[in-house]
């Protein structure tokens, strides 16, 4: 999987992906494509009940199935029997209690995947089925029995800023809901575990953070971290859904138990049960303003359904609170954000991470306030826009460029698309019945922001090793090694571009990501270009320093004395936890985007055609402009999905639509053209001024679309995804 990049291009150019050729030829090795001699297939038995007690598990019939090599339960987990990103509360394999439908109970290894699945069905579990706790409001009731010993309240973040009881002349209130969205990455969870001669295990895995997987694996397998080696398998998308462990421990347990390589690969249905989702949210907002449109106070209550296990819920809750009022200067704020345990599917990280939910609510409120004030909604936002030096509700100043007003002006001033071109563009597409009657156009705006990198005192550093040597043909040649997960975003390209720019070396190889080098942190929080980019930059600078010590001569000559290598960590500015009043310098830096949506709605049938999305976004520095555009367009598609179609439907704790037939993601017919404006206002603290790109497109695109739908229909539309019934007013 070593990749050689043959182009000259460095930072700021649309360099082609080094993994592009194998990807278009079908030769790129995704984790699900791996194969080993004597390989067995793993399968998982999952709980059909959202809440139950396990009286007993009988594995004899499964184990007797021809072709089966192992059937394991919680009794076979040698080390810590639970795992989790922040709180290790999730059983590797359930014992006594199951707390959501789909919880893993037992695992099987067999010589054919169908044999493994059939054997898993032969495991007999004696269940005592219990009533699930599925209402997050009820979970807060102290009279309700807790799912976990710590109680059902997983975290409560209270922010108090200025005079929280301040009143304005004009007041608007609203209640909003966000449904449970799925990351729906196309490459299913997959990995290949290979037992090693030292009694340890090598795992080839699609993940977002190799080292945090390794540490959790070592704890549950009861092995020293050095004996658990991870190599990144090809990753078919992530979007937050690969932050938590899925089949990692299971595959390693089966491999260590059988002494043979074991592959596990989920199908789409199992994938819906195998990873966490975006938190559903219920939000109540109260906005106070002066008559001339200055925000006086915002009070918000946010309730997130964390589901059965903690995952990254506590950080999502903190983010929902931090960004609850949006990118506005608000002198008086009170926010109460809570996340609770229920027997619903566990929720955790997804692109936008807490800011998506509250952005839907605060932007709906800004529109509502604009109506109450009889003011243009863009003008109202502009008048209250956050800027550099503004004080956030958390008491911290905004240090980075914060072009909120400018982004709004830019999307407002972009040309509007023309009228409908032909019948195929009408709501309902070629199958629609309208020929234009009942079709109303709407325009809506939204702006949002979020933190880049991990917050609240977490030092999510990245490590890079850079080595420069002479190739056999006498030309200088650089190798970059990090553990950073390429999940599709183009990080391998970016690392090579930075190395080329800093070293002046054309030939750069990005080595496979593995745990043989220090942690790179997670491919999350829009952080990798800044953090691993920063680490590569710093390591390259160190290499150049070492070369200069050899004298002043061309690189080819200096390298005749042997290769030069440097390993460096890149740490961002220190951050601090929030105190009891939600005050603290908790975030490294921020990224901002604004969106304008144009929609055509068939108001009689409730069908929608999104005509165009226009966006302006500040990225700090576009290392690879084409990849930046790809991130923005792809992020908007996920925001469109949440606005119009994407929701995991959970009834009484049971998932009703665990398939791509029933959980719909946008197709090429759903996505409109995107009009893009990318700003490069450099961050003062990062190399090249780098900031994040990936998440802002997903944050404010959803509320912009819903705003446009409201403009077209006059309906309140307080919940996403918006359904045809809501649009038709049924």
């Amino acid at each position, binding site marked *: 999987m070593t990749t050689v990049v043959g182009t000259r291009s460095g930072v700021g150019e649309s360099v082609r992906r080094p993994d592009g050729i194998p990807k278009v030829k*079908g030769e790129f090795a995704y984790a699900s494509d791996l194969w080993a001699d004597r390989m067995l297939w793993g399968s998982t038995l999952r709980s059909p009940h959202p809440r139950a007690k396990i009286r007993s598990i009988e594995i004899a019939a499964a184990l007797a199935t021809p072709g089966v090599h192992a059937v394991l339960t919680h009794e076979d987990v040698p080390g810590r029997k639970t795992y989790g990103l922040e709180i290790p509360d999730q059983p590797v394999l359930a014992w006594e209690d199951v707390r959501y439908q789909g919880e893993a109970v037992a695992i099987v290894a067999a010589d054919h995947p169908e044999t493994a699945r059939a054997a898993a069905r032969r495991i007999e579990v004696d269940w005592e089925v219990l009533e699930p706790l599925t209402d997050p409001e009820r979970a807060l009731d102290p009279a309700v029995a807790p799912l976990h010993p710590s109680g059902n309240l997983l975290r409560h973040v209270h922010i108090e800023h200025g005079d929280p009881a301040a009143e304005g002349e004009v007041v608007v209130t609203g209640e909003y809901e966000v449904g449970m969205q799925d990351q729906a990455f196309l490459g299913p969870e997959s990995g290949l575990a290979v037992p090693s001669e030292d009694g340890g295990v090598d795992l080839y895995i699609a993940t977002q953070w190799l080292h945090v997987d390794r540490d959790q694996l070592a704890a549950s397998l009861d092995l020293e971290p050095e004996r658990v080696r991870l190599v990144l398998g*090809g990753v078919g998308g992530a979007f937050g859904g690969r932050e938590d462990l899925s089949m990692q421990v299971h595959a390693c347990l089966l491999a260590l138990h059988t002494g043979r390589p074991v592959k596990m690969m989920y199908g789409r249905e199992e994938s819906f049960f195998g990873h966490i989702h975006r938190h559903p949210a219920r939000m109540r907002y109260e906005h106070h303003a002066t008559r001339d449109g200055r925000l006086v106070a915002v009070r918000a209550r946010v309730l997130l359904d964390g589901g059965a296990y903690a995952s990254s819920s506590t950080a999502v809750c903190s983010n929902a609170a931090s960004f609850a009022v949006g990118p506005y200067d608000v002198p008086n704020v009170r926010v109460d954000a809570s996340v609770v345990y229920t027997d619903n599917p566990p929720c955790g990280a997804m692109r936008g991470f807490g800011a998506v939910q509250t952005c839907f609510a605060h932007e709906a409120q800004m529109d509502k306030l604009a109506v109450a004030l009889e003011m243009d909604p863009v003008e109202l936002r502009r008048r209250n826009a956050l800027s550099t030096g503004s004080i956030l509700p958390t008491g911290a100043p905004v240090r980075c460029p914060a072009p909120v007003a400018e982004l709004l002006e830019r999307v407002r001033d972009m040309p509007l698309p023309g009228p409908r071109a032909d019948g195929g563009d009408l709501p309902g597409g070629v199958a629609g019945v309208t020929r234009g009657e009942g079709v109303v156009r709407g325009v809506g705006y939204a702006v949002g922001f979020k933190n880049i990198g991990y917050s609240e005192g977490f030092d999510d550093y990245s490590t890079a090793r850079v080595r420069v040597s002479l190739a056999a043909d006498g030309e200088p040649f650089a190798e970059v090694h990090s553990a950073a997960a390429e999940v599709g975003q183009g990080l391998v390209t970016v690392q090579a571009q930075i190395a080329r720019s800093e070293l002046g070396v054309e030939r750069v190889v990005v080595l496979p990501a593995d745990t043989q080098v220090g942690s790179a942190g997670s491919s999350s929080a829009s952080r990798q270009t800044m953090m691993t980019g920063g680490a590569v930059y710093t390591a390259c600078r160190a290499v150049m320093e070492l070369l200069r010590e050899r004298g002043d001569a061309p690189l080819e000559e200096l390298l005749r004395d042997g290769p030069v290598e440097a390993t460096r960590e890149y740490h961002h500015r220190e951050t601090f936890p929030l105190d009891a009043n939600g005050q603290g310098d908790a975030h490294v830096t921020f990224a901002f985007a604004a969106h304008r949506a144009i929609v055509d709605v068939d108001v009689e049938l409730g069908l929608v055609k999104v005509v165009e999305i226009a966006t302006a976004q500040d990225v700090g520095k576009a290392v690879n402009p084409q990849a930046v*555009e790809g991130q923005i*367009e792809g992020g908007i598609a996920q925001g469109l999905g949440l606005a119009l179609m994407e929701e995991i439907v959970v009834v009484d704790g049971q998932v009703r639509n665990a398939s791509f037939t029933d959980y719909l993601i946008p197709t*090429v*017919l759903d996505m409109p053209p995107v009009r893009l404006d990318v700003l490069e206002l450099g961050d003062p603290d990062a190399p090249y001024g780098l900031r994040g790109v990936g998440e802002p497109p997903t944050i404010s695109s959803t509320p912009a679309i819903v705003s446009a739908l409201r403009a077209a229909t006059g309906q309140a539309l307080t919940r996403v995804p918006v359904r045809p019934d809501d649009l038709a007013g049924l």
Partner: protein
Amino acid sequence: MRLTCTINGEPREVDGVWEGESLLYVLRERLGLPGSKNACEQGECGSCSVYLDGELACSCLILAGQAEGREVVTVEGLASEDELHPVQEAFLEAGAVQCGFCTPGLIVATHDLLRRIPEPSDPEIREALAGNLCRCTGYEKILDAVRLAASRA
């Protein structure tokens, strides 16, 4: 059972195929051709698109036995080892590849579209690719790639 068919122009024989296996499984796990992808395995995402006797099809929906005696072309068969088909080249150049899991299916579907309609309009491109899900790109760069490939044909 034994399966005999032509794959990418070569006659192939596979023994020990279980009757419940899909053509996709046989390609990926028995013939060492993992280019066809397994994203949904129920015909919704198009990642496993292949030609079966010259017709575009989801290989996950075809039982291995249904391919008996027939001709299958996969993404691996569109260009020789060291070459790129113009559609593959256009996907690279336009930035239409991110995670790449949808890419082989989209390449095959685009190949089929341009074979049928050498200069497709945007609505024709969208209609032809509506059965291929992509979660990364938002489809803009994929449309660019198809237009680019068509312009060069």
